[in-house]
């Protein structure tokens, strides 16, 4: 028996919310806008729960597919359907997206209460949920791409929510364009899939691959690398991560929802979704791992020197995404998804708490001006504390389990595994360090600014904080084994089998020690000897400046890519080619016509006698021509010389 789950309603409800609020929102009262805005994700969440319940009690078998009867694109051999594909992977993602999404919607009611464009905000948020659920549910690559681009759009709109701020508008644009670079790779990947498989349907691709068990590497590597470029763009991996820190220009709930919990993990989801391709392309997989590891440590080092509370969290997000990529790269997809889920909880919590801090500080985001907020905003402090301990990886909080799973998977993944593990470990240490730095700088010591009057946030903001804090604590208790087992139909079983029985325990110990070490360093530097960081920075000016300026990556991109492109376009293409060469040719043609006109005009001297001379000359030429032509062609053909044989017809 097949029950209809109506999963098509999951995206459509937020879409309805978007349309209602987007079109009518400006005329509706705020409470109605909030109701519509909240109802849509809530109902979606209920539907997802319903689907989860029905599938876990085996009322409905997974994978479960719903396809719109008419194809979306059907042209030649290209066919793409509106088909929704529900399997454990997408179900888990849906739970996170709608669940966390709903919480952040609630939070937003309080956070955005005094903003203009309240309805616009909620409509965009709903739009995001629509595209995100489409992305997650997509049954073929093209529909996934729809969601992929759509969440990018929502992100663009929400980053630029305060469009009067030039930095916000620029950040939105940057996010979109950098994502477009990634999408370029993604598109090429799609084309390659289409050209090589003749279908875009995930199930069919997987089927083809099953049939051809010997097919490894080659074009599959190319496909996977292209997909990786796309994933790196969306998930802010090296070298395309640059948009994410800037994206913090958006409202903080947006940062929490889109740029921490859900959208940015779409790359990870995509790799997991297409794992059957990556599994056949070991080189691509290795590159995924390397990119992930490099991003993780790279972003973590930058986070050490940031002073903007949201930027620290942004780099932390990049770093954590690196972890997930690392996991994917060692084919530990379920570990990646596991971390994705826990990360969604604690990073959303971090952002929301940071938002609460910012709210309390009246919009101030610079940590150097904070301090001692522990007493002023206790709920925020405690939830934030939970989040910090979670991300640092202390047991038994959620990230402990997920990070552990990743590090373990990396360690056992083969030849380069130990190295990857070491990088992961170091990142864990750094993570702990910068998170506790943030914690100390924000909540401990004395308030370092005079004109702030911190106050606790309203209930609608506190409630999500508490729920997320609970999730951050308990989220990992399910354990990687059962999680992997649940996901196995989607991404296959965890491949690594340890040969050494206590390896996992030892590795765990290392990880916890690293977290502890990070905490201790932070404690020393930012609580006990607060003058030390400045001394250290003075002692190592080059290193500090490098980190504070994020390795100058933005500047390098600007100097190497953007500026040259603009200069090339403006000066070479615009001036030299378009105006100079092409315009010059047209100008020359027109000029030569005009010049010959001017010369021919001289012919018209106005003098009668010269006219007559021309006439005479022309007459002479015609006479000459006639005789010449006649001698040559007319009579000459008959062998007759007209001058001599005057009486040739004398009969």
């Amino acid at each position, binding site marked *: 028996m097949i029950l209809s789950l109506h999963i098509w309603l999951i995206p459509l409800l937020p879409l309805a919310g978007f349309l209602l609020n987007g079109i009518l929102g400006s005329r509706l009262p705020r409470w109605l806008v909030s109701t519509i805005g909240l109802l849509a994700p809530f109902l979606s969440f209920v539907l997802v729960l319903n689907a989860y319940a029905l599938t876990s009690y085996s009322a409905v078998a997974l994978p479960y597919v719903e396809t719109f009867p008419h194809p979306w694109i059907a*042209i*030649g051999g290209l*066919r793409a359907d509106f088909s929704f594909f529900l399997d454990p992977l997408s179900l888990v993602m849906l739970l996170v997206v709608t669940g966390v999404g709903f919480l952040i919607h609630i939070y937003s009611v309080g956070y955005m209460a005094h903003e203009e464009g309240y309805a616009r905000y909620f409509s965009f948020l709903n739009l995001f949920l629509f595209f995100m659920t489409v992305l997650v549910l997509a049954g073929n690559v093209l529909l996934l791409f729809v969601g992929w681009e759509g969440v990018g759009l929502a992100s663009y709109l929400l980053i630029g929510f305060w*469009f009067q701020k030039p930095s916000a508008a620029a950040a939105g644009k940057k996010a979109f*364009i950098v994502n477009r670079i990634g999408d370029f790779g993604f598109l090429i990947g*799609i084309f390659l899939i289409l*050209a090589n498989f*003749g*279908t875009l349907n995930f199930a069919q691709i997987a089927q083809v691959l099953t049939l051809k068990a010997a097919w490894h590497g080659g074009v599959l590597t190319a496909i996977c690398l292209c997909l990786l470029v796309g994933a790196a763009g969306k998930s802010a991996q090296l070298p395309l991560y640059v948009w994410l820190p800037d994206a913090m220009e958006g409202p903080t709930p947006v940062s929490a929802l889109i740029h921490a919990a859900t959208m940015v993990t779409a790359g990870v989801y995509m790799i997991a979704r297409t794992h059957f391709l990556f599994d056949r392309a070991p080189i691509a997989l290795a590159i995924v791992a390397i990119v992930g590891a490099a991003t993780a440590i790279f972003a973590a080092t930058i986070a050490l020197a940031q002073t903007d509370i949201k930027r620290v969290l942004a780099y932390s997000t990049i770093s954590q995404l690196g972890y997930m990529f690392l996991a994917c790269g060692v084919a530990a997809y379920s570990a990646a998804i596991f971390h994705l889920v826990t990360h969604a909880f604690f990073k959303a919590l971090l952002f929301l708490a940071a938002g609460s801090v910012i709210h309390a500080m009246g919009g101030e985001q610079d940590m150097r001006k904070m301090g001692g907020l522990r007493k002023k905003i206790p709920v925020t402090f405690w939830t934030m504390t939970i989040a910090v301990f979670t991300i640092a990886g202390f047991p038994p909080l959620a990230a402990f389990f997920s990070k552990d799973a990743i590090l373990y998977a990396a360690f056992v993944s083969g030849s380069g595994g130990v190295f990857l593990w070491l990088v992961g470990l170091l990142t864990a240490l750094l993570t702990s360090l910068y998170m506790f730095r943030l914690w100390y700088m924000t909540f401990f010591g004395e308030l370092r600014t005079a004109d702030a009057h911190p106050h606790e946030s309203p209930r609608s903001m506190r409630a999500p904080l508490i729920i997320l804090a609970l999730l951050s604590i308990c989220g990992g208790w399910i354990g990687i084994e059962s999680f992997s087992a649940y996901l196995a139909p989607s991404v296959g079983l965890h491949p690594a089998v340890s040969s050494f029985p206590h390896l996992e325990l030892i590795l765990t110990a290392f990880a916890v020690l690293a977290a502890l070490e990070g905490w201790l360093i932070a404690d020393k530097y930012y609580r006990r000897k607060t003058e030390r960081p400045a001394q250290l920075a003075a002692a190592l000016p080059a290193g500090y400046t490098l980190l504070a300026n994020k390795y100058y990556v933005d500047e390098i991109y600007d100097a190497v890519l953007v500026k040259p492109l603009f200069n090339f376009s403006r000066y070479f*293409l615009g001036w030299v080619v378009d105006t100079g060469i092409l315009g010059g040719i047209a100008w020359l043609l027109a000029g030569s016509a005009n010049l010959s006109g001017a010369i021919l005009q001289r012919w018209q001297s106005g003098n009668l006698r010269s006219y007559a001379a021309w006439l005479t000359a022309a007459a002479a030429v015609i006479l000459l021509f006639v005789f010449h032509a006649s001698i040559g062609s007319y009579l000459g053909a008959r062998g007759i010389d007209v001058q001599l044989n005057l009486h040739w017809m004398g009969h």
Partner: protein
Amino acid sequence: MKAIDPIILTLILLVPLAGAVLVALAPDRAKLPNWIALLTSLLTFVLTLHLPAHFIAGQRGFQFEVNIPWIESPAICYHVGVDGLSLWLIVLVGLLAPIGVVASWNAIHTRRKVFYSLFLVQQTAMFGVFVALDLMLYYGFWELSLVPMAILIAMYGRKDGTKAALKFFLFTFIPSAPLLVAILWLYARTHTFNFSELQYQTASGVLPASALSWCALAFLFAFAVKVPVFPLHGWLADTYNEAPVALAMVVAGKLGLYSMLRFHVGLFPAQARAMAPLLIVLAVIGILYGACLALVQRDYWRLMAFAALSHLSLIVLAIYGLTFMGWSGAVYQLLSHGVVDGAIFLLLGALEIRYATSTIASYGGLAAKLPRTVTIFVIATLAMIGLPMLSGFIGEFVIFSSTFALVSRAAAIAAALGVILGAAYMLSLVQRLFYGPESALVSSKPAHDLRIGELAILTPLVVLMLVMGLAPSLWLNAIQTGVHPPLIKNNVIVSGACAAATYEAPSLVATPELAAKCESLQEAQR
């Protein structure tokens, strides 16, 4: 309704003309010329809708065909007809007419009679190009379409309209001289101007091949300038900069691209095949070149001009990929480009009416003052840069994927780079116009958001962009019958062998046999 089938095309051609006469005769009082023009264009649009309503989708060949002898010697006929290729383009032209009238509603104050008369004559000429199946008739409409355009650019040019109009006219008129010679030569050899007959004749091999290539080249040259194809785009930026909005939105692309498909590729497939590599290269250059230059423009009309160069080059790429799938994509993209460009032009024109400048730097922070404008503009922008679920994506995707799989991977990849740049220049346009703090100009003028008339025309366009993005089969079914392989056997363009077969199979279900076939095809491809 069947009774009107034989005369529908004639009606479509005559109604705008009659409207033009009516406008010319009616007094220039109140908004009378505007209303007559609007009603005429709406009526024409309704008439064009008759075509898809009664078009038999599966049927190949021309429908609604009329063929009446016109001039005995040379044998020119009034021969018009519609197939899947031209069907929706006609509707598009019909749709853009009321948009043009609305766009001109407040922009044109002086000599409205002249403006609207010529505008409607222009409509007739454009319809004529799309429906004519007699080469001479086609040429007639082709040339006729230049005149109202040139005059109106000169009349309503912003700064130096005369120069731009002259440039536009000469750029397009001079290449049509070789075109006419080629047409005459074809007639001298075949004694017919009939499209279908000529198609047989060019394919039958009776005409000398070298002369045919010259003919094809003449055709191509004329069309390439009109599209325009890099490096023949010299007229485009000035024309966009000077032309009234209603005309700028139709000046580039449609006529030339349609003509390429119908009369270059359609008449001279072998020659087109020989020229294809060159055109693919030019198209790719055009895509990137236009996009790069659009990035650095300071005036939004010029920006739109280079953007158009980029987008139209993409369609050229699709046409000269010489795959049926690419052609469907090309026609679809053409439709989408018409709709999206129409909306964007209308909006930019509305801005220009309100703020009297097209310099981007003068704007800024409009979003708060003109929420409706910014909403629709952003949607149109997104459609333009190919956001999925909006109209631009379908055509782009079909073109890219067919080019990638069947023509040239390098070309597809290079062309896809244009997508990145497209997002860059369009979004920075949005940013510079609408976001950021209010500029001095914006604060100094009262804010008037879109009027009801503008909204009435823009809303359907937005809906259309969405529907075109969501249900392309509504259009593609008819288009696909139009770009079918030519009926004559040796006129068939042989596509990349493997890929064509791959695409012919509706979808590769993974049965062992099909998998084996796929394998062998891939082997063959290598």
